[in-house]
């Protein structure tokens, strides 16, 4: 529609009938696939040849690794502190000054 079509002789805007636009229907899931309160976990594998028992400092959950190579799921809130744990920081014979990590992330 041109500019002249929308203005009458007196220079006022004409009333234009609005067009009806139909939008496509949007379907909404009745249930979300991912619940909002799902706990995010991290797989941690034990690197120490022993039974490991640690309590998550954030969640208070108790985690037990039966032996070296055992992998369990821990809360991501606890994982950071567990991953920082090291053993052998006071190594006697040329070991790492900072010790070796007890856990590693398993993908």
């Amino acid at each position, binding site marked *: 529609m041109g500019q002249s079509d929308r203005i009458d002789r007196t220079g006022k805007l004409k009333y234009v009938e609005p067009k009806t636009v139909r939008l496509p229907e949007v379907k909404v899931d009745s249930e979300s696939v991912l619940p909002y309160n799902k706990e995010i976990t991290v797989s941690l594998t034990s690197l120490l*040849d*022993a039974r490991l028992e640690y309590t998550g400092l954030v969640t208070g959950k108790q985690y037990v690794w039966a032996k070296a190579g055992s992998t369990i799921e821990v809360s991501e809130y606890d994982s950071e502190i567990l991953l920082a744990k090291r053993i052998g920081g006071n190594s006697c*014979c040329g070991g790492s000054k900072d010790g070796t990590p007890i856990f590693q992330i398993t993908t």
Partner: protein
Amino acid sequence: MTLSTGTPLGTGVTQEALYIEGAPTIFFQDYRANPLNNPDASGYYWGLSGTTPYPWNELGCITDVKISEDVTMNDVRCDTVGVKDTIQKRNYVEFTATIVSIFPFSVLAKMMNLSPATVGSGVETAGIGQINNTVHYMMYAPKIYDETGLDWLMFHLHKAKFVDAWELPFTYGEAWKLTGIKIRAFYDDTKPSNQGFGVIKRFDQSALP
């Protein structure tokens, strides 16, 4: 006039004027793991490679280290002429050591044949129960004898375990020492017969060009 040395004529080899001092470092790893060279280009099985389920352990601060063997030896005797030969059979090869570092318990428990250690925040525990006779380890003992030339040698024993009774004397004025530790290597019938007990290997570019 040439010096009389008594050296025999013909082809021969003399030994090197190279002397090594000090103990090797001793590492061990669960026998179920594969050795690092499994085998190497010459067919020898040796070296350790730590894996997640089977990490290696180092014996910390060791003294009085020696390696020895046990051999059954029987003379072949003929009453007419006496001993004509001696039949020898190697039974086992053994490392003996005294260990001054007793921590962590996760390693000590293996040396003292205790139950597997339980480790938690600020605490580690091991039980003194019956000895598990099914546990075997690979032993690996490298010794660098020239750090400049990167010359070194190593002992690798295929299938060993900690045997015999240990002692932990609490002597006044001395560090605690775990004595009586013996690491006995048995014949591993999964390895070639020429290396059933283990392998010794030397790396020396200058002496072995």
